[in-house]
C-alpha cells in the first residue's frame, strides 16, 4: 500500500494539476506539490522500514500470451528504495522551486503536471519487477523529458532540442528493446526475480549469426548497455543532453541531472548479476564511461553557457558512475548516483536562481561580481561545486562527492586490471578538469569583475541570433518573436548605457536575490550535498555494504570489498590532490596571471576550437547521419510518397472519384424522359445479361 502510494501520488498530482489547475495558478501548484511532498515523505518511510526481503506488490496482470507473462507490479528492494528516496526528494525540492521559478510563466498547470508525470514514470521505472514495465517507465520518462525540454514550444531552439533528445534516445531504446528480446530468448522470461539467479547458467550460450558465433549474454548485455548509453548520455549518444538545457531550469535539475539520466546506471546496477557474467561487456562499459568522464570534462572547460557547463559536468559524472559499474563496483556507482543527484540538483537550481535574477541571461561572459548581489545563490553554487570536486579531510569529514568519487577511484585501482588502471588514470585527469571548470564558473560569475566590453559583444551576438531566429520563424510566431527581439534589444541598450557609466556593479543594478520559495529547496539540497556522503558511505561502499544491499546488487566481484580496506594512502588522497591541482590552476589562471589565459587560448587556438565545438560531435553526426538521412528522406518523400503513393494512391483515387462523381451527376438531368430511358436501358442490359448468362450456363 505504502509503496503503491509513493508511485501513484505523483500521477494523481499530475492529473489533478493538469485538469483542475488550468485556471488557478495556486491550485495548479498546490495540487502538484502536495502529493509530491507526501510521496517523498512516504519514500523516506519506506527507506527506514525496508524489510530484509524485497517487497513485491502485484497490481494487475499486463500481458499474458503463451509462455510470456508480465504483470504490473511494484518491486522494492534496497536498490529501488535508494532510487525512491533520490527521485522523490529531489523531485519534491524541484517542485517547490518551480513554484517560484515559473511564477511568470503562462501555463503553470501544464508545467507542474508534466513534472509530476515525469516523477511517476521515473518511479514506475525504478520499481519495475520486469523488463516490460521498466521499458514502460523508460519510454515514459523519455516522453516527459521531450515534453519538458520543448516546454517553451514557441522557441524554435527548444523544439529542435526536444526532437533531438527524442530521436537520439530512440537509438538507445532500440538497443534496449533488442536487449529485452535477447533476454526473453535466453531465459524465456522477462521477470527480474526469475532471470537474475540464472545468469551463470546461460553464460556459455552462443548465438550463431552470419557464420560467426557470439557469446549470447555479452551481446544481450551490450544491447542493454546501448539503451543505458542513450538515456545516460554516454559518449556517442550524449549529444542530446547539452541541448536539453533549452528546457526550464527545474527540468534540467530534476530530469537532466538528478534522475532520468541516471536511469542507465540504475539499469546496469539492477542487472548487475547479468553483467557480472559478461566480463567483456563490463570492460566496454568501463572504457566508455572513463572516456565520457574525460571528454565531457574537457568540453566543459571552455563552454560559456552556465547551464551547458553544468550539463557537461553531469555527462562527465555519469561517466564516473559507469566506469565504477564497469569495474564491478556497483555500490560505488549507486553511491555516486545518489550523492550526485543532490549536489548537481543544487548546482542547477543555484544556476537557475542566477539566471532568473538576470532575466534569463545564461552567458557567463556577461556576468561577473555577482557574489554580493546574490549571496545565497553564490553559496549554493560554491557548496555544490565543492561537493562535486570532492573536498574533504580524509578520515574526518567531507562533502558528498568526496566519499563517492573516492570510492570510484579506489575501486578502479583495486580492480587490478589494465582497464581499471586506465579508468583510474582518466578519472583522475577528469577530476583535475572538474575542479578547474567548476572554479572557472564560480570566479567568472561571482567574483571577477564584469568584463563590460565582452559582455556587450555577447549581448550583440545574442540579439543577432534572436533576429536570425525571427527571420526563420513563420506566420503567427512572427509577431511575437519580433516583439521579444524588440524588448531584449531595448533591454540590451539600457544595460549598455548603464555599463558605460563605468563601475561594473551598475550593470546589475536591478538584480535581486530569488524569493524564499526558491531558496528553501536550495537549502534542503545543500543538506544532502553536505551530509549524504558522510552518513551513508559505510552502508553503500563500506563495512556494512553486505547487510545494506542484501541481494539487490551483485557484490561478488566488488573490488573495494575484496580489498578489505587495504587501499594505499596515495590512492586515497589522489582524488583530493587532483581536485586541489585543478583549483590551484584555476585560481592562478583567473586571479593571478590573467594574461596567460589569452596567450594559451591563442597559442592553442586549434585545441580551443576543438573543445568549444564539443569535439565536433554535432558536426560529425550532421554529416554522417542527419544529412544523409535527410537526403534519403527527401528522396522518399518527393519520389516515393508525393509522386508515387500520393499521386497514384490517395490523391489519384480521390480525384478519380470526384471526376466520376461529377460525370454521374451530369446524368441526373431532371428530364423525365431521360430517366425513363435510363430505366429501360437498364432493363434491357440486365435482361440481356441474365438471359445470356443463364442460357449459356444451361447449355
Amino acid at each position, binding site marked *: 500500500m505504502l509503496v503503491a502510494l509513493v508511485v501513484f501520488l505523483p500521477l494523481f498530482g499530475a492529473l489533478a494539476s493538469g485538469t483542475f489547475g488550468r485556471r488557478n495558478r495556486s491550485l495548479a501548484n498546490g495540487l502538484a506539490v502536495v502529493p509530491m511532498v507526501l510521496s517523498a515523505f512516504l519514500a523516506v518511510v519506506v527507506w527506514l522500514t525496508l524489510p530484509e526481503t524485497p517487497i513485491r506488490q502485484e497490481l494487475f496482470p499486463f500481458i499474458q500470451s503463451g509462455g510470456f507473462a508480465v504483470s504490473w507490479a511494484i518491486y522494492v528492494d534496497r536498490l529501488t528504495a535508494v532510487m525512491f528516496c533520490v527521485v522523490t526528494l529531489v523531485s519534491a525540492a524541484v517542485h517547490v522551486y518551480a513554484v517560484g521559478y515559473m511564477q511568470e510563466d503562462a501555463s503553470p498547470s501544464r508545467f507542474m503536471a508534466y513534472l509530476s508525470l515525469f516523477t511517476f514514470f521515473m518511479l514506475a521505472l525504478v520499481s519495475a519487477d520486469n523488463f516490460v514495465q521498466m521499458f514502460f517507465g523508460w519510454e515514459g520518462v523519455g516522453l516527459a523529458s521531450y515534453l519538458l525540454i520543448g516546454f517553451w514550444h514557441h522557441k524554435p531552439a527548444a523544439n529542435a532540442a526536444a526532437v533531438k533528445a527524442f530521436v537520439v534516445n530512440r537509438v538507445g531504446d532500440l538497443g534496449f528493446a533488442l536487449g529485452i528480446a535477447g533476454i526473453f530468448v535466453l531465459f524465456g522470461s522477462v521477470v527480474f526475480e526469475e532471470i537474475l539467479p540464472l545468469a551463470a547458467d546461460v553464460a556459455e550460450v552462443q548465438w550463431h549469426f552470419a557464420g560467426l558465433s557470439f557469446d549470447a549474454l555479452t551481446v544481450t548485455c551490450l544491447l542493454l548497455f546501448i539503451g543505458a548509453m542513450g538515456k545516460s548520455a554516454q559518449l556517442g549518444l550524449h549529444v542530446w543532453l547539452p541541448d536539453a538545457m533549452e528546457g526550464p531550469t527545474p527540468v534540467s535539475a530534476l530530469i537532466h541531472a538528478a534522475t532520468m539520466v541516471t536511469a542507465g546506471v540504475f539499469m546496469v546496477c539492477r542487472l548487475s548479476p547479468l553483467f557480472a557474467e559478461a566480463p567483456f561487456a563490463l570492460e566496454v562499459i568501463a572504457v566508455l564511461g572513463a572516456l565520457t568522464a574525460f571528454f565531457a570534462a574537457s568540453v566543459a572547460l571552455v563552454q560559456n553557457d552556465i547551464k551547458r557547463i553544468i550539463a557537461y559536468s553531469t555527462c562527465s559524472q555519469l561517466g564516473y558512475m559507469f566506469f565504477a559499474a564497469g569495474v564491478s563496483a556497483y555500490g560505488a556507482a549507486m553511491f555516486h548516483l545518489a550523492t550526485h543527484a543532490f549536489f548537481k540538483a543544487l548546482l542547477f537550481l543555484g544556476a537557475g536562481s542566477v539566471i532568473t535574477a538576470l532575466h534569463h541571461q545564461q552567458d557567463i561572459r556577461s556576468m561577473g561580481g555577482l557574489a554580493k548581489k546574490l549571496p545565497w545563490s553564490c553559496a549554493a553554487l560554491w557548496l555544490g561545486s565543492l561537493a562535486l570536486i570532492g573536498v574533504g579531510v580524509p578520515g574526518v569529514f567531507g562533502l558528498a562527492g568526496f566519499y563517492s568519487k573516492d570510492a570510484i577511484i579506489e575501486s578502479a585501482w583495486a580492480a587490478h586490471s589494465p582497464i581499471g588502471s586506465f579508468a583510474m588514470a582518466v578519472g583522475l585527469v577528469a577530476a583535475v578538469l572538474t575542479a578547474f571548470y567548476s572554479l572557472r564558473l564560480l570566479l567568472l560569475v561571482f567574483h571577477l569583475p564584469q568584463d563590460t566590453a565582452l559582455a556587450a559583444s555577447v549581448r550583440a551576438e545574442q540579439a543577432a541570433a534572436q533576429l536570425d531566429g525571427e527571420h526563420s520563424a513563420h506566420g503567427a510566431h512572427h509577431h511575437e518573436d519580433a516583439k521579444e527581439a524588440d524588448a531584449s534589444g531595448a533591454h540590451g541598450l539600457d544595460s549598455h548605457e548603464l555599463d558605460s557609466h563605468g563601475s561594473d556593479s551598475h550593470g546589475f543594478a536591478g538584480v535581486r536575490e530569488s524569493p524564499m520559495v526558491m531558496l528553501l529547496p536550495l537549502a534542503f539540497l545543500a543538506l544532502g550535498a553536505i551530509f549524504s556522503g558522510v552518513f551513508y558511505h559505510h552502508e553503500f561502499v563500506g563495512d556494512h555494504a553486505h547487510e545494506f544491499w542484501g541481494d539487490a546488487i551483485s557484490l561478488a566481484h566488488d573490488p573495494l570489498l575484496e580489498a578489505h580496506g587495504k587501499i594505499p594512502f596515495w590512492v586515497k588522497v589522489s582524488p583530493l590532490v587532483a581536485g586541489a591541482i585543478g583549483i590551484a590552476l584555476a585560481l592562478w589562471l583567473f586571479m593571478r596571471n590573467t594574461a596567460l589565459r589569452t596567450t594559451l587560448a591563442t597559442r592553442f587556438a586549434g585545441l580551443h576550437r576543438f573543445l568549444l565545438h564539443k569535439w565536433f560531435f554535432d558536426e560529425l553526426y550532421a554529416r554522417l547521419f542527419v544529412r544523409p538521412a535527410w537526403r534519403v528522406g527527401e528522396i522518399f518523400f518527393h519520389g516515393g510518397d508525393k509522386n508515387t503513393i500520393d499521386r497514384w494512391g490517395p490523391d489519384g483515387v480521390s480525384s478519380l472519384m470526384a471526376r466520376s462523381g461529377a460525370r*454521374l451527376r451530369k446524368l441526373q438531368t431532371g428530364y423525365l424522359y431521360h430517366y425513363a430511358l435510363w430505366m429501360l436501358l*437498364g432493363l434491357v442490359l440486365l435482361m440481356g445479361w441474365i438471359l445470356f448468362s443463364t442460357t449459356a450456363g444451361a447449355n
Partner: protein
Amino acid sequence: MSETLRGLYLLQPTLFIAGAAMLLLVVGAFSNGKRDLRLPALMTLLVAFLLQILSAEFSTPVTGFGGLIIRDGLSDYGAALLLVGLFVSLLLADPWFRREGILRFEWYPLVLLSGVGMLLLVSAHNFMTLYIGLELQSLALYVLATFHIRDLSSAESGVKYFILGSLASGILLFGISLVYGFSGTLDFSVLAHAIEGQEQSAVSGLIVGLTLVVIGLGFKLSAVPFHMWTPDVYEGAPTPVTALFAIVPKVAAVIILARLMLGEGAIISALGVDRVLWALSFLSMLWGALAALGQTQIKRLLAYSAIGNAGYALMGIVAGTEDGLAAMLVYMTIYLVTTAGVFAVVLSLRSDGQAIERLEDLKGFAQHHPLVAVLLGIFLFSLAGIPPLAGFFGKFYVFRAALESGEVILAITGALTSVVAAFYYLRLIRLMCFDSGSVPQERPIPAEYAGIMAVSGVLVLLFLLAPSAPVAFAQSAAASLFP
C-alpha cells in the same frame, strides 16, 4: 376455423389500420379538417403494433386466404419495423408541417393507407397480393410527394414519381403476367413446385418474367439504375415526406425481395435471376457513393445515401444465407434508427423562419447547437460505418455474410464504397464543426425532434453494449425462411 376467418385473423393489424384510416378520413372530412387527427393516428399505429406482436407466429409459417398471404417470422419482423417507422414518421412530420402551415388532415389517412400497402407487401405470398400491396403503398406515396400543392417543386416531384412509378408498375405487371403465362400460377409455393421440371423454353419465359418483377421492385427500393427518381423526389417533396420515403417503404421492398429470393423454393435464385440483385447491389453501392460527392443539398445527399444503403441491404440478400438475411434485417433496423435521427436533426434546422436545405447553411452549426451537432455527428459517423457505433456493426454483419457465401467482389466493393461515402458524411461534420458561418439557428427544438434524436443517439451509441438482442430477433425472423 374457416380459411377466411383465419385470413382475417392473420391480417388483423393491417385490417385494423385500414379501417382506422377510413374512419379518420370520414372524421376529417366531416369536421372540415378542424379536428386534430394526430393522436388517433398514432394510437392506431400503436394498437396495430400490439396486435402484430400479440398475434406473432414465430415458430411456423401460416398462410391465409388460400395462400394469398403468409404470416411468419419475417413478415412479423418486417411489420414491426414498418409500424415503428410509420410512427416515427408521423412524429417527425407534425411540427414541421405546423411551422410551415401546410398540415392538412389527409396526411394521416394517407400515411396509414400507405402503411396498409406495405404491411400487405411484407406478408404477400402471391403475386396478386404483392401487386396490390405495392400499388396501394405507391398510390398513397405519390399523393404524399405532392403534399405541398402550392410548391412547384413538390408538385414536380410528385408527377415524376407518379409517371416513373407507373412505368415500373407496368414492368412489374408485365413480369407477373409472363410468370403466370409460363407457369399457370401466381402462388409462390405452387410456382416453386412448377419451376422444378419445367421445359427449357418455359424456363426462359419465367426468367424474363421474374427479372421484370425484380426490376419493378428494384424501382421501389431505388436501386441503380432504377433510382433516377430518388434525388429529385427527395429534394422536391416536403421534408417530412422525404423522411417517410427514406425510413419506411424500403423495408417492405427488401423484405418481399428476400422472400422471393430465399423463401420457399427460392423462386428467383433457382433460375439464376438473383444475379440481377447482385448487379443492383453492386451498382447501387458504387453510384450512391460517387454521385453523392458533389451534392450541395442536404436532401439530395440523403437520397444518394439511401441509394447506397439499398445496395448494402441487397448484399445481405444476395449472400443467400440465413446469416445474410439476418444481417440484412439488422442493417435495415439500424438504418431506420439512424435515418430517423438524421431527419429529426434536418427537420429541426431552421433559420429566419425558413427550413434549411443547403449544406452550406450548416456551417458553424456546432457553435449554435453543440449538443445537436454532436448527435448529428454520431449519426453521420454511424452511417459512415465508424466503430463503435451501430452503423459499423450493420455493415460488418452484411460484409461478413457476403464473404462467407463467397461474394468477395460485392464485399470488397462495399468496403471501398463505404470509404468514399465516409468522405461526404465527414464533409458534413467538417462543415458543422470547423467552418464558421453566421446562419443563426432557431430555438427551441420541438420536443418530438429532441426525443427522437435522443433515442436514436442512445441506440446508435449503445448498440455495441448489447448487440446480441437485436441480432437474435433478426436471426429468429430469418430462420422462418430456412426451416
